[in-house]
């Protein structure tokens, strides 16, 4: 009987197939014993509470008419307009209210009220006008690099107003009584330079079992702007603008939107007490 294949070739092919089978079986065993049949997918958090934004109540973009209101008694004083810092403005057609800082104290003024001899005449979107001794002074809303004071004279002023002081490039945090005012430039600086954040403030995880429950402040450098935010070591950040901070994604969401935020409300836990810290970003 004649063979269809040479027995040696047949034997070799059979041997090779056996080898393939052995490798396949080996991989099958590895797969069954150690390899998963599906991967790990990232699932986006659903039902998260959106950040809320508080808005500045200035319906008029243009300057409110500087109607001469009944002036309250104006005390003559040798005060300096540079000592007045404009922290906030509420400006409507019928009422103008501003918050100013003067000699480390904040004061709320309505049109016609005076501070240090300067009478509030009106306000625009980002400035307030004061008058004193027939001169008009324009004070800009507190912002990064300048003290925000301009002076215009109704009759030509006899004395040139002081040049604006140049603040540090990073801006600063100002105490406005019930809340703090953060310079936008300061916020922008830290948004651009994350490393600078961690030089000034330490943030650690708070875990509830395996789950992240929040972030704890581990240190705050004393001479840093963070120290002026009234946050302390061991405070636990629970939420920012209504968004629970219980994941890195939630914290990063706040970071991503920080440029569009005008106000920040931090809910923190200090010891057993839960507190709300308010910040305005100018």
């Amino acid at each position, binding site marked *: 009987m004649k063979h269809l294949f040479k027995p040696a070739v047949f034997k070799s092919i059979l*041997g*090779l197939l056996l*080898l*393939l089978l052995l*490798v*396949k079986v080996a*991989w099958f065993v*590895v*797969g069954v014993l*150690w*390899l*998963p*049949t*599906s*991967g*790990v*997918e*990232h699932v986006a*958090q659903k039902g998260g509470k959106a950040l809320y934004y508080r808005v500045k109540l200035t319906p008029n973009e243009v300057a409110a008419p500087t109607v001469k209101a009944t002036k309250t008694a104006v005390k003559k004083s040798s005060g300096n307009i540079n000592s007045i810092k404009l922290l906030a403005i509420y400006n409507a057609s019928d009422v103008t209210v501003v918050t100013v800082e003067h000699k480390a104290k904040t004061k709320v003024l309505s049109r016609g009220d005076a501070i240090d001899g300067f009478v509030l005449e009106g306000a625009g979107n980002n400035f307030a006008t004061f008058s004193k001794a027939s001169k008009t002074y324009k004070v800009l809303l507190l912002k990064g690099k300048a003290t925000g004071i301009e002076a215009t004279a109704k009759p030509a002023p006899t004395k040139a107003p002081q040049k604006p002081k140049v603040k540090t490039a990073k801006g600063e945090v100002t105490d406005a009584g019930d809340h703090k005012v953060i310079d936008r430039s300061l916020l922008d600086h830290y*948004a*651009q*330079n*994350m*490393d600078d954040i961690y030089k000034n403030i330490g943030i650690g995880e708070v875990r509830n079992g395996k789950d992240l429950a929040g972030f704890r402040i581990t240190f705050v450098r004393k001479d840093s702007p963070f120290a002026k935010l009234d946050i302390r070591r061991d405070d636990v950040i629970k939420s920012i603008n209504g968004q629970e901070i219980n*994941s*890195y*994604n939630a914290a*990063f969401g706040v*970071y*991503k939107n920080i440029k569009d935020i005008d106000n920040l409300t931090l809910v923190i836990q200090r010891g057993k007490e839960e507190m709300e810290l308010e910040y305005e970003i100018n």
Partner: protein
Amino acid sequence: MQMVKKIFITLFVVWFAFLWLMPKQELYYKLEHELAKSAIKINEKKIEEGFFTLTLREADIYAQGIKLATVEKVSLFTLLFYTHISVEKLLLDDSLKSMAPTSIENTNIIHKVWNPLNISMDAEGGFGTLSGKANLKERALRIDFNASKGIEMLKPKLKQDEKGWYYETSF
């Protein structure tokens, strides 16, 4: 001589079968599980297996739940003695633009068995080109930025020598 030939053929068949029959997708899933322990997750639209390759298409990379980057194509090619990972069109999330260049066109990572303690890499993007080397023995990584532009945000982390800017770290 015949015996040597037989041994070589057997080794070749085992090597070929080892790579060909390797459950590449399941091994990749295993890698995903390991990465998930470090809170790194990859969502890919498609996984393609070849004789020696595994390709991921349109992959989103997350770390700690934060989307870091989108990659159009990641290709892993291995012959065991030569392994090449190529990453095409990596786009970092826009929110990270203050930390790193956002677009990397091509990245190649190569390991060769005749240089087992070194992994070489190169990349090309909007920042220019870079080349790097990881020494597995010394556990050190050095990345040289060649003809680089737009790396201002990285410069605080970089060092400079006569060749130019470079990044150095240990792992």
